[in-house]
């Protein structure tokens, strides 16, 4: 039973491992935002830390079961040309890709921003939701 659990976990890990997609329009990433992926009964949820990134600067696309999140963190206008004492925050282009299970309903993907965290919800298709059947013992 433990082995089976491990095997399933391994399968999921490979589902979500970022895959390389060839796209010349993408600029090399300057930094890499942290991500969490969680599974619920009816959906997958991807959470990404994007502090200081505005809504307009994030693009989310889904193609061949590969979810691509990319964008740019721009420096504030006010700070440009100012006298800097310290720069620890990362700026520039970022991108992350995730290969998702075929059971995700691409047309129902939703995303929102809250306190610098991007929330992407990916609903599962009906047939992929866990089914609970009670078996009566005679």
């Amino acid at each position, binding site marked *: 039973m433990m082995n089976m659990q491990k095997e399933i976990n391994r399968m999921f890990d490979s589902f979500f491992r970022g895959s390389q997609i060839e796209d010349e329009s993408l600029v090399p990433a300057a930094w890499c935002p942290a991500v*969490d992926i969680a599974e*619920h009964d009816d959906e997958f949820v991807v959470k990404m830390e994007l*502090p*200081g990134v505005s809504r307009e600067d994030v693009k989310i696309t889904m193609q061949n079961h590969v979810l691509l999140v990319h964008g740019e963190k721009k420096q504030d206008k006010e700070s440009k040309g100012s006298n800097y*004492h310290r720069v620890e925050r990362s700026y520039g282009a970022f991108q992350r890709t995730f290969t998702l299970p075929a059971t995700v309903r691409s047309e129902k993907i939703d995303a929102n921003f809250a306190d610098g965290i991007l929330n992407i919800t990916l609903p599962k298709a009906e047939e992929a939701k866990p089914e609970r059947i009670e078996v009566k013992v005679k």
Partner: protein
Amino acid sequence: MTNNGKQTREDKIVTPCADIFETPEAYVVCLDMPGSPKETISLTMEKGILQVEAAVEPHHEETANVLYRELRTTSYHRAFTLGEGVDQSSVDAVFENGVLTVKLLKTPETKPKQITIN
């Protein structure tokens, strides 16, 4: 994948990344603090030390099976020792898109002065 679907959340206090820059009127500190609601942020000024503290709400419900986890911060904490040239009575802070921006006005003595040539 050892959590068997349960959330394990150990305390992880993070020093938020900061940018500090200077304008003619003020010093500005920008801190990346994603995931902490505005209400949990505490900003205090005492004896020339500016302290920032904030809590990060759990990212997932307890029933969720977290398959992959990089977001581990449970709280933020950072302190800055301020120099003489800061007017400690006028601190202004804004929290937007997970970034806390603190503006510390300079004392009149530290502001650049224009000297007129006779």
